[in-house]
Structure formats: structure tokens, C-alpha cells
């Protein structure tokens, strides 16, 4: 147990940073259509938070809270969400992945041309796709690191 | 009916022809002497030695076409030498072929 954990200083700092990294990752995901970032970037940051916990507390302890099966189901749900949004494009509008939310009340505001401070309520389906990809990437990258750490931990 | 540039190929006709020839052969076989069918005549003659049973003469895969490979020994040695099974060599072949193709494509323009 104490072998797997790092020293108390590292674990404390990791605990302190964990919510901060997570909220920052959500910020990057949600503001993907306004500031640099987006689903993949935010997802990688969020996965890094879990990777940090793996190194600070040990893979076994993380596995108790979030097993790789759960994480990969989470990932599948993200992928499904992406495809479903695309298929809604068939049904509600013209073609696959077409941006059917532009001009609608949710995420539908069209920003003025040129430099502007940006508004969260714009972008059509882009925020939805960002969230889908974000879920997918968090689940995927975290689960792959977790399973590799676990596979190594059981040797000898 | 598949038309090629020189002629045509029709498997249905081919099968019909095959069957017709087979029937003709069977008929011709019917003209043969009855007492030669099923008897000593059908057995192979191995210098008077008794034919060994099928179980004993089954040749294993490693020995089939031994002579063929022995005849082409030089070629096979060269081939076995380049099939090293090392990943680096695989990549090297890719790079080498690309380099050759570069030279080929650029030389055509020069000439």
C-alpha cells in the first residue's frame, strides 16, 4: 500500500489540484468554440487528472473507484452521442453531421462578423460534439493508462 | 459467356463438353475386355515386391517437392537470406524501394 502511494506531499498536492484540473478541462471543452481548445484537448486534460491520481495513489486504488470497464463504457457512450448527433442531422436537416442547431434557441446565436468577445450560446452542434468527444477521450485515455499500470502491477 | 479480346469463355459449355467427353470415355471403357477389370491388372508392379499399404507410404509435408527445392537451391538460399524476420529490415526495404522509385521517376524526366 505504502509502496504504491507516493509521499504525503505529492498526494496532498494531487488532491488539491484534481478539482482544479477537472474544472479547467470542462472549461476547455465547453469553450471549445470560443477559445483554443475543444473536445479532444479538454479530454486529454481531464484524462491527465486521472493519470495523476494513478501515479500519486497507485493504480489499484483508482481501480476501486473507476474500473477500466466503467471507463470504456463511458467512452462508448461518448462515441454513441457523437454518431447520434450526426444521425439527427439526417433526420432534422439535410445530411449527416449537418449543423442543424444554427438559429435555434439552444446554442443557436450567430455571432457578429469580425472580432467579438464571444458568447457561450452559439456554435450550433459544435458544443454537443465537443462534449461527446470530451467524454470519449477522458474515458479512453484514462482507461488505457489504467489498464497498462494494472497489467504491470501484477507482475511478480 | 465471357467475351475476351481474342475469343470467349463459357463455363456452362465447358461443363457440358466435359460431361460429354466423360460419357464418351466411359463408353469407350465399356468396349474393353471384361476380364481385365478388377484383378491383377489393376495393381501396380513394383519389381515384383508387394505393394506397401497406404499408411506406410504417406509422405510428410516437409518432404514433398524436395527435389524441386534442391534444384533451385541457389535461388532459395538467396530468398531465405532476405526473409530475416527483423522489423528493421522490413522498414529498410520500404525506404530502399522508395529511394529506387524516386530515382526511376526523376530519371525518366531527365532522359
Amino acid at each position: 500500500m505504502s509502496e504504491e502511494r507516493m509521499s504525503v506531499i505529492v498526494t496532498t498536492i494531487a488532491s488539491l489540484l484534481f478539482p482544479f484540473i477537472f474544472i479547467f478541462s470542462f472549461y476547455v471543452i465547453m469553450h471549445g468554440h470560443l477559445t483554443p481548445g475543444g473536445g479532444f484537448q479538454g479530454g486529454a486534460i481531464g484524462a491527465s487528472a486521472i493519470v495523476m491520481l494513478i501515479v500519486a495513489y497507485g493504480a489499484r486504488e483508482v481501480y476501486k473507484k473507476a474500473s477500466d470497464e466503467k471507463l470504456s463504457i463511458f467512452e462508448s457512450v461518448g462515441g454513441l452521442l457523437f454518431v447520434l448527433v450526426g444521425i439527427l442531422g439526417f433526420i432534422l436537416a439535410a445530411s449527416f453531421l449537418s449543423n442543424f442547431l444554427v438559429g435555434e434557441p439552444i446554442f443557436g446565436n450567430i455571432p457578429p462578423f469580425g472580432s467579438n468577445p464571444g458568447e457561450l450560446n452559439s456554435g450550433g452542434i459544435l458544443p454537443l460534439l465537443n462534449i461527446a468527444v470530451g467524454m470519449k477521450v477522458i474515458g479512453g485515455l484514462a482507461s488505457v493508462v489504467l489498464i497498462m499500470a494494472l497489467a504491470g502491477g501484477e507482475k511478480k | 459467356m465471357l467475351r475476351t479480346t481474342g475469343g470467349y469463355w463459357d463455363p456452362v459449355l465447358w461443363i457440358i463438353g466435359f460431361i460429354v467427353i466423360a460419357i464418351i470415355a466411359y463408353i469407350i471403357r465399356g468396349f474393353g475386355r471384361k476380364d481385365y477389370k478388377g484383378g491383377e491388372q489393376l495393381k501396380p508392379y513394383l519389381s515384383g515386391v508387394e505393394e506397401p499399404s497406404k499408411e506406410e507410404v504417406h509422405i510428410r509435408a516437409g518432404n514433398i517437392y524436395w527435389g524441386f527445392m534442391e534444384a533451385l537451391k541457389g535461388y532459395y538460399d538467396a530468398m531465405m537470406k532476405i526473409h530475416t524476420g527483423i522489423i528493421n529490415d522490413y522498414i529498410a526495404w520500404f525506404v530502399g524501394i522508395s529511394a529506387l522509385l524516386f530515382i526511376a521517376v526523376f530519371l525518366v524526366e531527365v532522359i
Partner: protein
Amino acid sequence: MFEIGLILLSIFMVATAIIAVWFKDLLASTISLAAMSLLLSLYFYMLHAPDVAIAEAGVGACITTALLVITIKNTERMEEEGGEEE
């Protein structure tokens, strides 16, 4: 100034890449690879591609290194002697 920065960064990146390939100690190679990824991210950033820079940062700063270190932990750290042919 911008050009000088780019030239410096180019040199650094090539240097770190060479170091990463040259070391026999795979852990040191990993460290050098992390440094290269860091500088690559700065390069992206200076070429006005912040989106890509964030992606490279998120991936190169921890996930690549984490994967490599875990693999080295489960295999062996040193490259074999005579690792280079000819």
C-alpha cells in the same frame, strides 16, 4: 526577434530528438522525448496554432510519458549492448 526564436527552437528540437535517439538509457530517452514534445508545443504556439499546442501539451506532457514509463517499468530499462548494427 520572431525569426531568431524560431531558429533557436528548431535547433533545440533537432538536438533533443537526436539525444532521444542516441541515449542507451531508455528512461533518459523518454525524458528527452518529453522535452522535445514540450518544445514542439512551443513551436506550434509560436506559429499561431494554440489549438494544436494545447493538444500536444495535454498529450505530450503526461500521457505519452506515462505510457512510456509504465512500459519501461514492465520491461527493461537499458537498451541491449550492440544495439546498433554496422
